[in-house]
């Protein structure tokens, strides 16, 4: 059976449903961070720091920092939430809670557990991104932010795809990290470099190497694509580039994750 085909099998959905059920039981507490984080970021950096910075030049347009930041936060939320969930939470479920082992003694197989984790990380990250959209809308209602609001719902599928791709990156580290003490490594190796080279929070300096590297960064394309879409109402090639790179990541990493996790979970070849 193809590993990719397992994503749509009922066992993967059963694992996803399990995670959703657990999450929804404490929705009132777990919803606070995704609401507060963009709120604080937009207030402190967007309005606070932005008022000190003055206008920002982006694609020959003059913007205040809040307008530059808003699409970036949306992209960063999809990336970061998904990566964190598939790395940290999945590691805890696999290693400490042993809930993977419990699932694997049923009709659920490892490919379903892996897809269940990836789909859950992507679903959660997308739901956080939707919350960010609502926070952005609140800023709009307060007269602080003007976006092409009609495009906002159209960004959701792309945010989901990005989140799914980065969940595969998170699962890669779940498979290879020897212990929870090494969790800081992927943050230094992935989160910080990908985040910094992405034009989510600030425009990239016009340095040749950095420009070329950022071309391979799906988060950069997502942030820029969302910025074009939400600030100008024009879909650009960045959105396609982001989707393409995310699909490439998924096709390359999910089979690799499976292989590494098989070795890790079963001690098997």
């Amino acid at each position, binding site marked *: 059976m193809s590993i990719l085909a397992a994503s749509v099998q*009922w*066992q993967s959905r*059963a694992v996803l*449903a*399990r995670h959703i*059920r*657990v999450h929804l039981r404490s929705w009132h507490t777990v919803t606070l961070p995704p609401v507060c984080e963009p709120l604080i970021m937009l207030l402190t950096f967007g309005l606070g720091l932005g008022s000190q910075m003055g206008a920002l030049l982006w694609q020959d347009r003059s913007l205040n920092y809040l307008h530059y930041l808003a699409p970036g936060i949306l992209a960063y939320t999809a990336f970061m939430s998904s990566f964190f969930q598939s790395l940290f939470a999945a590691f805890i479920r*696999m*290693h400490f*809670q*042993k*809930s*993977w*082992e*419990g*699932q*694997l*003694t*049923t*009709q*659920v*197989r490892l490919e379903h557990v892996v897809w269940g984790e990836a789909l859950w990380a992507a679903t959660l990250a997308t739901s956080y991104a939707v919350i960010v959209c609502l926070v952005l809308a609140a800023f709009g209602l307060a007269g602080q932010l003007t976006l092409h609001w009609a495009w906002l719902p159209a960004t959701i599928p792309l945010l989901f795809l990005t989140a799914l791709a980065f969940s595969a990156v998170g699962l890669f580290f779940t498979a290879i990290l*020897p*212990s929870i003490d090494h969790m800081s490594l992927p943050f230094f190796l992935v989160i910080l470099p990908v985040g910094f080279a992405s034009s989510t929070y600030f425009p990239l300096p016009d340095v040749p190497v950095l420009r070329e590297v950022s071309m391979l960064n799906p988060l950069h394309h997502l942030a820029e694509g969302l910025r074009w879409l939400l600030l100008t109402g024009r879909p650009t090639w960045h959105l396609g580039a982001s989707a393409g790179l995310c699909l490439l990541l998924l096709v390359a990493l999910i089979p690799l994750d499976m292989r590494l996790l098989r070795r*890790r*979970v*079963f*001690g*098997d070849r």
Partner: protein
Amino acid sequence: MPPVLLEATNLEKALGGRPVVQGIDLTCAAGEVLGLLGPNGAGKTTTLRMCYGYLRADKGSVRIDGHDLAREPDEARRRLGVCTQDDTFDADFTVRGNLLQTGRYFRPRQPDLESRIEAVLDRFGLREFANQKPDTLSGGYKRRLMIARSVIHQPKVVFLDEPTTGLDPQARVAVWELISALRAEGLAIVLTTHYMDEAARLSDRLQVIQAGRVRASGVAAAVLGDVVGEHVALIPAAAPGAEAALAWFRSLPPSHRPVRPAQVLAHWHIPLDARGLAAFVARFPDLVYEVRPPTLDDLFLALSTEPGEPPPPARPGTERRA
């Protein structure tokens, strides 16, 4: 003749490049308990994990109620239940939630799953803890929950991997009663255990595994006879003549000494067949010793001290090994 529900043939498995299971056959019929015995690292858990599909066998096949585990995994897995050695219930759910969630991992879905859960809660004595998280339960009740999870979907074959390890005697007896009741219902049960009294009480047949191979199989008495012999002489280690008796035993041809003697605290346990015992009595008329029939403890000791016993293999699991 009850139908054979588990049929494992010529199972082989290497882990980390080292053979752990080397050509094991297992069968278990409806209403039968098969006890798997062996020292640590013998390959019991690896064998069991191949039988319930957690590990892929390098060679050999497993059929559950006629369905090949490799070719028809969904059909085969629907018919088996597993109680793992570690507590692998879902700590995010209550006791009732665990049963419900486990039921959701099987298709076709157990008809009337809700009422089945209520019945299982009563039957396993878990009713008063139904709304508690499993972490708050005592060790005995955690094991009850693990066994309850393994049968919530009404399987035909149940694998119990050391189901009473770490329990106090009262809790062990309670688990034994549950296992006996499951057997009475016609389930085929495969059990691994370190407790010899447990194996003797619960198992209809024993299969002794050593270094990844079946060393002996059959009813307890036959297994003991095959591996240990018919008698065990207990000689105080400090007794004058004990060393001479050991030297004499070691000089016997291999056909007369089934396994090596083992020292347990202040006594040497020397396994002997009938001819060996007669020769021993004649040779050491002044030696003070006790002779008794072998027990499963002797079997375990014998297997653990046999020459060529390899070191325990790294157990597959969620731990990453260096």
